[in-house]
């Protein structure tokens, strides 16, 4: 395996979304990892999907004057409404990322949340 061959492999790899590559030829092998490659590639997989906050603001389980039943343990559909984020002059919906069961509730009504904060974990 010469340097030209390596260069053409890495050039090709840049055009793809691959982050790790193992290349074997004539008993030689080379392993290439981009900076996007995970540090630990054998991460344990989780069956829980997070429902992330779509905005920075105050979490409300229900609209003013209404109430929302206990979410933990509830079966939900994909995109089912799980609450709202209140911002000055706007309200954004929090929806379930998948169908399944709400296993973990990490938020309370009236608490401040930031963008991208996990609010619930759903088991598919």
């Amino acid at each position, binding site marked *: 395996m010469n340097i030209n061959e390596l260069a053409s492999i890495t050039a090709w790899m840049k055009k793809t979304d691959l982050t790790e590559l193992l290349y074997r030829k004539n008993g030689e092998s080379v392993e290439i990892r981009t*900076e996007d490659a995970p540090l630990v590639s054998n991460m344990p997989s989780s069956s829980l999907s997070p429902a992330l906050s779509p*905005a*920075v*603001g*105050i979490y409300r389980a229900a609209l003013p004057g209404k109430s929302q039943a206990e979410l933990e343990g509830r079966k939900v559909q994909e995109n089912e409404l799980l609450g709202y984020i209140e*911002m*000055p*002059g*706007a309200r954004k919906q929090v929806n379930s990322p998948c169908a399944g069961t709400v296993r973990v509730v990490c938020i309370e009504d009236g608490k*401040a949340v*930031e*963008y*991208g*904060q996990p609010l619930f974990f759903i088991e598919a």
Partner: protein
Amino acid sequence: MAEFKKVLIANRGEIALRVIRTLREMGIRSVAIYSEADRSSTHVSAADEAVCIGPAPAGQSYLNQAAILSAAKITGADAVHPGYGFLSENAAFSKAVSEAGIVFIGPPPSAIQSLGYKSTARELAIRSGVPVTPGSKGLVSKDFEKAAQAVGYPIMIKAAAGGGGKGMRIARSEGELMHQMHMAQSEAKAGFGDDSVYFERYVERPRHVEIQFAADSHGNVAAFPERDCSMQRRHQKLVEESPSPGVNKALRQRLAASAIKLVKASGYCGVGTVEFLMTQEDEFYFMEVNTRLQVEHPVTELVTGMDLVREQLLIAQGGALSRKGESTLEVNGHCIEHRINAENPDANFAPSPGTVLSWTPPGGPGIRLDSHVYAGYTIPSYYDSLIAKLIVWAPDRNSALARSRRALSEFQVSGINTTIPFHLKILENKDFIAGRADTGTLLRMTEAPQPAQKEAAPCA
């Protein structure tokens, strides 16, 4: 007005860190906001609190007014510092912040509109007796050819809502007018959503000289020594210095008097900068007012001993300026700022985002480095490419030039391209060394060695 307990900084990078530093010295708590691309930025770790407000694109984070206001609300901030760029000169944001019962650390919306909008600022300058370049009476419309004749060529076509060199075009003769007018209007429309333009006489080989001022709510206005920002590339400043090698004490007083007249006429409150174009004959014309803290504000800080962010906070709290009167024009020594960008000067200054592998900043006597970068930091590709401001002070200009050379050669960065080598070249430029640079010096310097690589749009 009560003293601030907590201030949210609606910005990122070096300027957010700069503001946080003064807040800490004043015993005020700081709140940083950040996009998902800036999670590991220094401004986030340096602040007392930090809130993620959105994804990487600025439109959904640092320009997202609702998200920033929401972050200010949930953290209980009593004031918002906008830094420069992003929403710093946005009258609607200033208004929204005030209406939410939070202090906007900057001028009121009315002052942003009267001074920040170039054509109205020019009209105010004319009314208050501040010299302006010959130009059209306000915006030009269908009879622009007649307006151009009255102004006289060469003509600069400028976007009313423009800034940072965007939406500016030069027409050197009547034959060029139609085409350049069309280009300027479409750039203005694309860049600012507003295709209004006006005309100004184009001055050959001018210096860019500006006066930093501060105005409090008690009617005090202080003007500080001028900054010379003639070393620009396509209207983007790269090197700034104070005092200007082309300005003596008498001229400084005239510049300052003009700036103060304009600021007083506008009823402005806060810090800001009046920019002037200076001709080779030492005449100066009003260009525009920046109603914000500027990138190059440290240059003024080092020759005056002021902390301009502290002044901003004092003014916003309803207090008085810490220094007033003639003494604010006194210059102590000489200061030069080098804007270090993550760009490749050998590839037409193409942005060079990526991970900084090593970072060895300069130090020693007379050196200040304002930067949010560290070894291992990844420069996101979403925002502007400024990674550090190297600010050098010395007792006189020649010593400052020597100190700049020394500091830039100490400054070692690997993993990305930077403009450090280009700044070292600037320090070899005969016109710059002699103190006779004009706003075209940098362009001539970058074009001279590579005559084959013609710039596609030299006026963009």
